[in-house]
């Protein structure tokens, strides 16, 4: 199977600039996460860090199919979604370090980035915690006639939470413009998903009558093509969809999860990185099509790298919130 064969229609519709933009965004997420790993291991970042590296094609392919005012909800592994929806790395890093310049004034941290300006209803640290919120945003969009769409990102671990099935039922009953995006990165924390998930994943969405499909989550072109179709469908009032993106988490469950051989092999990790890397796959295709070459890729990498270094410096230098802020914003 060649990746190019999957989406001739998308190829004709989307400009080279758009694919290069997605390439750059995936590189941004990858290098953002490298900096997070660095900050964390240097003990500059408090708390927990759940890295998105390996899954970039899902966030980018889907968010690039959205309007700026469309909504997303994200997860504990949410840096990629927030960046792909338009968050700026400097304020992201500031939030990760608990600084006042962060998106949540340091009150949310890595697992709770939220930003109304980019339609980000918030990353959520309860597994499946945001499925109701995303469905409610879609309800508002329909009721208020704003033509917005809501995308609810969650990992395959959320398939174990009953509330997901409650809201998929509601979304289909009321034909809400919401897309449930299941990122199946194969591991529910430290357990292979096959040990926690009975039956077929896509069938769970289909059981409620949702339009349901599954895609190669490492191929941003396939993800984007599919997302564009599902978003358009939802925007036109044809109802919700369930999209399973098959992907892989390069790192452990969190940065501290280093010795992983009791649940997956190093060979498996290496195979995904060398054969199924989303950035490499798009780069190879762009090269084959003569749309770009290694000089351009290198220049994108070095530009993004210096952008990330600058953003990290900004966050490290930024002040912490003053202690008086602790009681601010408990109530509106």
């Amino acid at each position, binding site marked *: 199977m060649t990746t190019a064969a999957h989406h001739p229609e998308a190829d004709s519709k989307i400009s080279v600039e758009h694919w290069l933009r997605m390439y750059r965004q995936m590189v941004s997420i990858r290098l953002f996460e490298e900096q997070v790993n660095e900050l964390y291991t240097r003990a500059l970042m408090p708390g927990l860090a759940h890295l998105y590296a390996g899954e970039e094609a899902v966030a980018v392919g889907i968010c690039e199919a959205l309007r700026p005012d469309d909504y997303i909800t994200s997860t504990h592994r949410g840096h990629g979604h927030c960046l792909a929806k338009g968050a700026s790395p400097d304020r992201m890093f500031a939030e990760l370090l608990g600084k006042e310049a962060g998106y949540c004034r340091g*009150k949310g941290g890595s697992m709770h980035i939220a930003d109304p300006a980019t339609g980000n209803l918030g990353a959520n640290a309860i597994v499946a*915690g945001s499925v109701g919120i995303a469905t*409610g945003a879609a309800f508002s969009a329909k009721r208020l006639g704003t033509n917005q769409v809501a995308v609810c990102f969650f990992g395959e671990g959320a398939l174990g939470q009953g509330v997901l099935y*409650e809201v998929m039922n509601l979304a289909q009953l009321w034909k809400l413009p919401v897309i449930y995006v299941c990122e199946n990165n194969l591991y529910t924390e430290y357990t292979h998903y096959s040990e926690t998930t009975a039956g077929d994943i896509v069938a769970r969405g289909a059981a409620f009558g949702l339009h349901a499909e599954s895609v190669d989550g490492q191929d941003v072109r396939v993800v984007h093509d599919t997302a564009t179709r599902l978003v358009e469908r939802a925007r036109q009032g044809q109802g919700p969809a369930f999209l399973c993106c098959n992907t892989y988490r390069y790192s452990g469950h969190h940065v501290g999860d280093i010795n992983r051989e009791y649940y997956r092999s190093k060979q498996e990790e290496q195979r995904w990185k060398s054969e199924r890397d989303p950035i490499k796959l798009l780069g190879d295709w762009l090269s084959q099509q003569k749309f770009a070459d290694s000089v351009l890729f290198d220049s994108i990498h070095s530009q993004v790298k210096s952008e990330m270094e600058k953003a990290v410096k900004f966050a490290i230098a930024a002040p912490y919130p003053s202690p008086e802020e602790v009681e601010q914003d408990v109530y509106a």
Partner: protein
Amino acid sequence: MPEAAHRELTFAQAVREALAEEMRRDSRVCIFGEDVAEAGTPFKVLSGLVEEFGTERVVDTPISEAGFTGLAVGAAMTGLRPVVDIMFGDFITLTMDQMANQAAKVHYMSGGKWKVPMVMRTTLGATRRSAAQHSQSLHAWFSHVPGLKVVLPSTPYDAKGLLKTAIRDENPVVFFEDKMMHHKLKGPVPSEEYTIPFGVADVKRAGSDITLVATSSMVQVALGAAALLEAAGISAEVIDPRTTWPLDEASLIESARKTSRVIVMDEGYGRYGVTAEIAAVIAEGAFYDLDAPVKRMGAMHVPIPFSPPLEDATVPTEQSVFEAAQALCGRS
């Protein structure tokens, strides 16, 4: 005096009128719940609303408390003002993640950027022969969570004024109605527009020898006990905090300092409950003016039993409060 001043409504009529007025005033207000539309809820509190506002705004849901409460959180964040109906207060347990982890924390975690202007209406109270899963008074659970406001109206007048305030509030508010009062308790409700601010206790009966702090269903019990006490030569003051959060600590302390003796009554479980919190507030604020330890009276620490004589033994009565007050005043 104009005739309108003598208008009397039942508790249920007052709740319904508050909802209808706010729905006329603000098209963003909508109701979600099980059998809220044509059925008007099993308690018939909402009868007639769907005829005026339609099924777009009075929305029957599946039996999915977590799902539709979560949906309401998202809808509130994105431009609507949902009022969710949780039929029996015991069912709030099914909504706990949506309320305690989502609704209560969204504003704070987002650094004050997202708001959740929603109301959850639910019920409390035993003695309806409904057994252990349809009789609890669990308002202490929500009162424990920063970010939520909790309202406990005890009269039709308070129910209407406080519910209108709840719907206009920018925060998640939980509104507990004593289901025994819905159709049994009648009281004056002016036809003119009014609202009642949160965090303002109301002296339901002035007195000088002992303070009976009472909430919700216990207010009528306290007033009955106060009448018995008067006949015995003891002047009891009955004060109703009306909201457990915000809590009008100053008024409770002031009444305690005036009378020097206090019984705190609430139909929730006594252990770690509302009575414990209020007793502590009074002990801290009025210690040197008290002539007796603060006494607490709540539901017995047992699952509410079905058998009538057993169930009746679990809740304070006029007679038990009368006896406790006499003892506290050294008159037994």
